[in-house]
């Protein structure tokens, strides 16, 4: 019961203090909102990028080995079995020359080309699904050194491109983390300063509380709640604005910003909401906790 009364007192004080310093409080909410929007955009871009990378990864983990026309079928099956026995390989599919030609012809872009050729110029293929991206290079070498492979163009694997993609993704992740770290520091400082103003405005009350024997956390509690309130309010605003703008933005700019992998993913919205609310509350609590530890001592 006593705890409940303390909580009620803290909530009431926090609410009053928030509105008493309305100017500073609103400025803090707006600043944290902008920061959370930046963080949200960062999360959305990260999510879109991760989607693109995932699709690349599944695509590049398949190596297509061109089989020379002179290679006997028995040799091909031997090699296929050898590959299937390899623990790094998930599966191997043999595509005959005819099947490959059919596939090639199915693509409307190749229609003119097909009309002008005779016979079957496309090689048969062994499509190897590699379990881990990191093993693709080794399996590719295995394919290239196989004597049954087509000498002119043994595999379609582009090691350089994949290495660059993996590196780029690592850098982008790092940049995302760095941006998040900067945003966290800035928001904590903003909340700390709001709390300092609130403490200044309530210094008389704090002094009296000390005199009549209030505990340190009784005095500090309302300020921490005020910080959390600021964070949660900012998170709601940021989430509202992001949700409002997410789909229209993606639809309007997808064509113009082709170099950024924009996509609308309704399933990601709840994750984004959770992250923003948790982030806002934590930032508010952290900023005000550090603030009261510095400015409220009994």
């Amino acid at each position, binding site marked *: *019961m*006593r*705890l409940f*009364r*303390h909580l009620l*007192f803290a909530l009431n004080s926090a609410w009053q203090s928030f509105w008493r310093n309305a100017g500073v409080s609103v400025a803090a909410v707006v600043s944290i909102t902008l920061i959370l929007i930046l963080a949200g955009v960062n999360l959305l871009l990260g999510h879109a990028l991760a989607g693109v990378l995932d699709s690349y990864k599944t695509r590049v983990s398949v190596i297509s080995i061109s089989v020379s026309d002179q290679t006997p079928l028995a040799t091909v099956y031997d090699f296929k079995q050898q590959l299937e026995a390899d623990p790094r390989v998930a599966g191997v599919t043999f595509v005959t020359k005819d099947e490959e030609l059919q596939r090639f012809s199915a693509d409307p872009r190749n229609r003119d080309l097909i009309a002008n050729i005779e016979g079957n110029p496309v090689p048969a293929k062994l499509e190897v699904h590699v379990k881990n991206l990191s093993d693709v290079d080794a399996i590719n070498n295995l394919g290239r050194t196989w004597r049954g492979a087509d000498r002119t163009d043994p595999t379609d694997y582009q090691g350089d491109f994949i290495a660059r993609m993996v590196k780029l993704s690592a850098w982008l992740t790092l940049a995302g983390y760095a941006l998040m770290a900067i945003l966290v520091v800035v928001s904590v400082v903003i909340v700390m300063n709001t709390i300092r103003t609130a403490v200044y405005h309530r210094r*008389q*009350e704090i*002094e*009296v*509380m*000390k*005199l*009549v*024997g*209030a*505990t*340190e956390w*009784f005095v500090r509690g309302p300020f921490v709640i005020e910080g959390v309130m600021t964070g949660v309010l900012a998170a709601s605003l940021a989430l509202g604005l992001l949700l409002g703008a997410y789909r229209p933005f993606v639809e309007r700019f997808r064509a113009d910003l082709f170099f950024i992998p924009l996509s609308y993913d309704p399933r990601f919205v709840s994750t984004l909401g959770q992250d923003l609310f948790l982030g806002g509350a934590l930032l508010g609590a952290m900023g005000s906790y550090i603030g009261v530890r510095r400015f409220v001592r*009994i």
Partner: protein
Amino acid sequence: MSVIAPDFSGRTVISFQHVWKRYPNGTDALRDINLSVPEGDFVFLVGPSGAGKSSLVRLLIREERPTKGKIFVNGVELGRMKRRKLPHFRRKVGLVFQDFKLLPQMTVHENVAFALRVLGESRQVIDRRVARALDTVSLHGKLGKYPRELSGGEQQRVAIARALVHAPRLMIADEPTGNLDPATAWEIMQLFLKINADGATVVMATHNREIVDLLRRRVVVIEDGQVVRDDRAGRYHEALQASALRA
């Protein structure tokens, strides 16, 4: 140099033992203070401005710690008291100041109740104890008034009522009549005498010569950070004269 042996048989409420207070700017606000206050005593701390009275009061409520020496209140050494114990200590001490320290946005009732609200007391307990405290200071009819609607004397009564809600055994007052006219100051003093008669120990820093001379209680004179005189039934004037003569 004599050491006042602390007597914790339930008789000594306050004991200062070779207490020094040096501020960061190098000034010694208090120098080798030795003082013992038995239970039920009424002590005036007098001396010129800047002599160290307020420093002594701040040490006594553990707003500051001594640079050297020990201070005991009810047998507990304040310098060693943990921060989390501090609120419990302050609840046992009634504090009254020259500037009243009332919260302007709260009514008389709310100001007094505030001391109990911070402890999470129930409304029934708060109402009962606030009514009793306001009764003691004869302010029962002004419950709904705000401090700005009260005279200085009435505001000080509210502050005293707030100090009384915890039923403290020790009252510490720093210039409680400093902002009041002589007639009102006298009324406030009557209140402190009543509180003292009810058994509480009272330590009061004051400049009010007339009151000190009239009451003839214990007078401790502080000058230049030192206790220069400690009279059982002292007078402000004589005390200062005597110390001036000695100097």
